[in-house]
């Protein structure tokens, strides 16, 4: 069921509880969130406020306890495990704070992983990875191992990996926090430039106020809920 054709993510009344140390922790308390297609939304808030849980639910990695979360009109919770995996493999790209590249694969092989997971033959996947690495400026480092790359270069490989299979939603967790200012700016320019093709959306969890200028909207979270609705006016300073 499609809620609205222009919404990449449409969440209503999301709740998620955890058991931690024998006590129930309410990670999400009835979250409402919309991310329109073609937008870069930043999710900000203090540590432990539920940002990671929220993007995990949006990405289909975690199931919410209550509420609905539709990604491009598909309620992930209603899918079987198999269909959810297939949806995630095809439609979602990930960029992590600690890059999470496979250390024994070259940059090109790392970038090709999502295509291989999607069943694309290795030569074709490697060819596509070469092209995307060219786009992120790493065409000369195809055979480099992650340990031979700088932090910024590793994050660019991770970005290439998140884009190689042409996903519709890219989920980024603190993509610049391990990078210096200049590198962080370049990574964000790259993300915004390469990722926001027609029909795509980006959600970035961050504490890094230096990159707020790249956001189309910013949602503030605290204590498991959105405390300030997504604003089209990026905040210049952050309390976090």
């Amino acid at each position, binding site marked *: 069921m499609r809620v609205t054709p222009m919404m990449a993510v449409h969440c209503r009344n999301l709740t998620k509880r955890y058991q931690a140390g024998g006590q129930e922790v309410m990670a999400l308390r009835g979250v409402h969130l919309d991310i329109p297609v073609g937008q870069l939304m930043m999710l900000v808030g203090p540590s432990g406020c539920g940002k*990671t*849980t929220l*993007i*995990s639910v949006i*990405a289909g*990695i*975690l199931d919410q306890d209550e509420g609905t979360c539709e990604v491009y009109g598909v309620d992930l919770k209603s899918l079987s*495990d*198999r269909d959810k*995996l*297939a949806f*995630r*493999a*095809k439609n*979602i790209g*990930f960029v*992590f*704070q*600690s890059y*999470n590249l*496979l*250390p*024994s*694969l070259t940059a090109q*092989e790392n970038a090709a*992983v*999502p295509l*291989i*997971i*999607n069943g694309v033959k*290795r030569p074709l996947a490697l060819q596509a990875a070469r092209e995307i690495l060219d786009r992120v400026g790493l065409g000369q480092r195809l055979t480099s191992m992650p340990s031979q790359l700088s932090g910024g270069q590793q994050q660019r490989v991770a970005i290439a990996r998140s884009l190689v299979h042409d996903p519709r939603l890219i989920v980024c*967790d*603190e993509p610049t926090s391990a990078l210096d200012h200049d590198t962080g700016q370049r990574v964000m320019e790259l993300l915004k430039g390469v990722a926001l093709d027609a029909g795509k959306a980006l959600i970035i969890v961050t504490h890094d106020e230096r990159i707020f200028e790249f956001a189309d909207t910013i949602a503030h979270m605290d204590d498991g809920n959105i405390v300030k609705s997504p604003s089209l006016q990026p905040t210049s300073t952050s309390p976090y």
Partner: protein
Amino acid sequence: MSYIAIRMLMGDRSKYLGIIMGLTFASLIMTQQPAIFVGLMTRSFSFISDVGLPDIWVMDPKVQFVDDVKPLQDTELYRVRGVSGVDWAMPLYKGLIKARLTNGNFQTCNVIGLDDATLIGGPPEMIEGRLEDLRRADSVIVDQYGANEKLGVKGPDGTLSPLKVGDLLELNDHRAIVVGIAKTTRTFQSQPVVYTTYSRAKNMAPRERKLLSFILVKAKPSVALEELTRNIESHTGLAAYTQKGFQELTYNYYMKNTGIPINFGISVALGFLVGAAIAGQTFYSFTLENLRQFAVLKAMGAGNGTLLMMILLQASIVGIIGYGLGVGLTSVFGWAMRNTILSFKFPWQLLVFSGVGVMLICLIAAGISIRKVMTLEPAMVFKT
């Protein structure tokens, strides 16, 4: 995904080599020790195998194995010849007699006395001389291991001179001249084997009322061996075994009455356990260190089935390499030991045995790791 699994496995060199070393060790122990055991057990009945011609061995009913000789009266030979279905029956003497070497040393020898007329029961292969030379006066044939080792004579410079054709021996104060060197299979007993005629062996042997050790029987064509053994037993009151039956009697005696199987069994079990511990622990630790990588793959859409196949592939690769190296090392060991006193026999069944052992280790190692990966929460990729 297979390619990624292989690269992940080989990317961590130290763990990869550690797992392979554990499996190689297990595979080596699980083939080398049983190969020595099988070689040793084969030796227990190698004398029976070497005497290839007769179909049936007849002996005192109390005999428990081939070296447990309980002599019969010579008249028993005629009773056996009288049993219907017997084509021929020949006497065989088997006993320990002391030999005095030319340098004055003594060596106990396993003397085999063959029927004077037919020489049935002789060595399977002659290296020097002919079996018929035993018909010459005082003649004996010595096995090559005895001639080269225990019956050899050390010269003043310490070098060992093998016993040769034409050399003299004294067997229980009887003169004996070596007329041939035979190739025999090593036996469980380490004494040199000396072949001579039955009558000469009786002369050499210490005085006893009975000296006939075994009666070798050939069945008439078309006579069933099992039926003939029953006929011989019922007519003579002696024990009669087919060649295979006598080998089994001897083999079973050593299995039941010696600590050999237990000792080797413990070695094999230890090899399995140590190999499983090293390989299992290292493989598990390898998986633990790669949990984040598996979580990343899971987050990006790789299912549990895919990850399961990746782990099984990794376990199979280290299993095949470790097994191959272990079996290869065992083969090299066997080849290097081929001319020594060490017993070593490597039948194909041992390849299957150790293959199953290594496969079990891999399955155990993979099983522990699989459980961890299957229950892995992909959301961990968002944690730093």
